């Protein structure tokens, strides 16, 4: 099965991309990209969201057919548009979103699609032995008989990697593998990658996080706007230079000037949110977000962040405990009531929760206040006033859109987020929930969002920042708490944060804060 044995083209080159071009309508997602990958190296593919990384990998795997260019694996041309051929040629991919069957065991997941379905029982013992051997060789310990649904995210990722190795992948591609991992789990992944390249595998590591690219790769290829703008040896590069290559200009991190915290904006007192519809219940949460303060909530995704966000945005009511807003208990747990009380809410998912994609920009901008007399009279919308309002916000928040009439779903992610920021921040809320405010945005938009949040803090807002991006939490927050399995740790001041300890808290390996 392995093409490695029959590679005629020198021992070094394993994968060659030559002049790959892919267009979607007027957008050129990949513009003449040429790359090569050598045996025993980790090549980092660095680029912002929308730079063309995922498109390139989808071409490699036969999900897309390129308009121009060719792919060679171990010296042989890879036919376009055939995932089967890609796997047969020795390519293995670990997607950002795992493709595992949760109700099957680890072993079954590895065998599905690999072993013949006709004689599954005869192959099981051999498969189990091979899996154990692979796990041992690469340090990917997972119990083969556990149900995937019971595994942690880090363990699931190991199963994905094992699956690729089981299929005799010689070239492994990892798409943003650390996005869902704690710092410790990331370290462990890097150790596995080093073992792989020692054994002669090649790895493509897709990321937009500079520190890990520096830590794990031998060479870096930087994509920008569909072009490969640089391929460099990692040794001899610094973070600032790499960031500039990625964005195309110098990047300045937002500066957080210390401010004395004001009175509490939001207080949670032993709040529990549980019930049949709550996926990850929140237990006994104690929290105070003060004015002039950003409180960061770090944590691995799926540990109750959404429940906490639902609670403070009015989407979920507490089943026990008390919420105070600006010192007063909240009477009704409804989004409209929260908005009226001066809560600004930036939801986690701008497509699913933030905006109605099929409606116009102006309609989305009045979504939280369409019942106010400014925008309606006797049940009729004041369309003129609403459009003028939209025009003002579009100008103030620098939203790039043709007009207030534009259909919202056609905007870029960054501009959608600016719409939500405009809708939320223009009212000068005293408390702001920012749930994953920069997920999927490019660096320019990220900086913009960060600046606006710091500005709101300057104006006296208390900000609850929930983020799975630890770097973001550490850059913005005055105090940091960790959420794990629905429980919040005691917040610590930013200056006293020890990243190792945060990592342990995120993994649930240190005692929880009990109030």
């Amino acid at each position, binding site marked *: 099965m392995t093409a490695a044995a029959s590679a005629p083209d020198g021992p070094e080159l394993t994968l060659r991309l030559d002049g790959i071009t892919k267009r979607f309508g007027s957008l050129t997602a990949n513009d003449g990209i040429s790359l090569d990958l050598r045996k025993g190296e980790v090549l980092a593919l660095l680029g912002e969201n929308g730079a063309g990384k995922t498109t390139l990998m989808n071409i490699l795997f036969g999900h897309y057919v390129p308009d121009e260019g060719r792919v060679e694996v171990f010296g042989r041309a890879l036919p376009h548009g055939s995932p089967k051929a890609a796997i047969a040629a020795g390519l293995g991919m670990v997607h950002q979103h795992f493709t595992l069957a949760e109700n099957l065991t680890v072993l079954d997941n590895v065998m599905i699609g690999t072993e013949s379905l006709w004689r599954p029982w005869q192959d099981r013992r051999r498969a189990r032995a091979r899996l154990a051997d692979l796990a041992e060789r690469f340090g990917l310990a997972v119990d083969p008989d556990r149900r995937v649904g019971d595994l942690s995210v880090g363990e699931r990722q190991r199963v994905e990697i094992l699956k690729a190795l089981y299929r005799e992948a010689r070239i492994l591609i990892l798409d943003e593998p650390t996005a869902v991992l704690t710092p410790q789990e990331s370290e462990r992944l890097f150790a596995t990658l080093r073992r792989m390249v020692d054994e002669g595998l090649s790895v493509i590591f897709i990321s937009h996080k500079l520190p890990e690219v520096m830590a794990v790769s031998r060479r870096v290829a930087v994509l920008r706007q569909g072009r490969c703008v640089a391929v460099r040896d990692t040794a001899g590069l610094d973070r600032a230079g790499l960031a500039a290559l990625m964005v195309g200009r110098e990047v300045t991190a937002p500066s957080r000037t210390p401010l004395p915290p004001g009175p509490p904006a939001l207080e949670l007192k032993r709040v529990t949110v549980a019930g049949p519809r709550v996926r990850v219940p929140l237990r006994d949460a104690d929290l105070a977000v003060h004015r002039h303060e950003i409180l960061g909530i770090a944590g691995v995704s799926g540990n109750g962040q959404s429940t906490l966000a639902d609670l403070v945005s009015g989407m979920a009511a507490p089943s026990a405990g008390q919420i105070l807003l600006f010192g007063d208990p909240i009477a009704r747990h409804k989004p*409209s009531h929260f908005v009226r009380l001066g809560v600004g809410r930036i939801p986690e998912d701008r497509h*699913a929760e933030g905006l109605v994609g099929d*409606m116009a920009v102006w309609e989305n901008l009045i*979504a939280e206040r369409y019942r106010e007399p400014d925008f309606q009279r006797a049940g009729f919308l004041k369309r003129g006033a609403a459009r003028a309002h939209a025009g003002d916000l579009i100008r103030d928040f620098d939203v790039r859109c043709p007009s207030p009439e534009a259909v919202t779903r056609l905007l870029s992610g960054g501009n959608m987020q600016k719409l939500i920021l405009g809708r939320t921040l223009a009212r000068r809320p005293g408390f702001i929930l920012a749930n994953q405010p920069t997920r999927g945005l490019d660096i320019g938009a990220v900086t913009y969002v960060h600046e606006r949040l710091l500005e709101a803090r300057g104006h006296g807002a208390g900000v609850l920042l929930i983020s799975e991006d630890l770097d973001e939490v550490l850059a913005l927050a005055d105090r940091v708490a960790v959420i794990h399995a629905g429980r919040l740790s005691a917040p610590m001041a930013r200056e006293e944060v020890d990243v190792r300890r945060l990592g342990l808290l995120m993994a649930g390996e240190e005692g929880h804060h009990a109030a």
Partner: protein
Amino acid sequence: MRLEARTAVPLWLTLAAPAGAVLTAFVLCAGLIAWSGAPVLEAYGRLLAGAFGSRFALTETLTRATPLILTGLAAAVAFRAKLWNIGGEGQLYLGALAAVAVGSGVISLPAPLLIPVVMLVAMAAGGLLLLGPAFLKTRLGVDEVVTTLLLNFIVLLFVSMMLEGPMKDPMAMGWPQSAPVVSDAELPRLVPRTRLHLGLVIAVLAAVAVWVIKSRTVFGYEIRSVGSNPRAAAFAGVPVNWVVLRVALLSGGLAGLAGASEVMGRTGYLTLDMSPGYGYGGIVIAMLAQLNPLGCIAAALLVAGVFVGADAMSRAVAVPNYIADVLVAASLLCMLVGMLLVRYRLRWR
């Protein structure tokens, strides 16, 4: 061959899609007509003439279109909020039953007052009937497709029971039909010596009103946001469940109005064969109109024309008139494909 989402849908395509769908349906059904041994072009010519070719044909088509406009609106307004009301037929019959209940002499008022009162009662009956499934949907997540569809049969049996029992007209020589509405509750004729009645004007006004609600009012704004992204609407503070319940009242009310308009304008009394599936036809019309309230008028005219014309065609060239059902059904299927092509572009590779 793959599908690619369109970034913007041009207006001509929105108009061309239903036209193309209907044409395709006619081409498909040409095969069936030829198979039954009739000359295709002549058959379609007869159909066209029978639907729109004379003053009488035109008024018949308009009479037939009247309830279809209203049931089409009922479906369109509910579907816009993603409330899948398949129960238009039941709401129509319950509205008609309510209309004869209050319109056949129980209250006596002058016509300008009695007609609106009877219509409002019929609308309330239809609206309340849909309120049940909508309530179950918002509270317990019960699938309203199932509940509204099954309610149709329950309502038909209930109407049958009433017509055989308490509401049976003693003067009807044993036929299961209701007492007629009093003359003050009858809708005046629009054209003398035809069946065309004031119901058409009311239906057209209803279409305009629904359009205004949809595109100009706070309620319409809520309907559209709940229909296209209920989660985002809820997050922004739109009272999603309350919107769905109000939509149910409006949608059921429009279907109930269709029933009232039929007994007050066309038949004068209620029988169990009053509607040849106007409630279900409303779904076809809403889809052909792409849920546009004004489009419902055009779509209802077309469907009514096919049914009226098919009778004429059947008489002239001996093609069974149920070809009309096939034509309308084929139009709906073609329209569903057409809507896919409006939203997506076909790419050959």
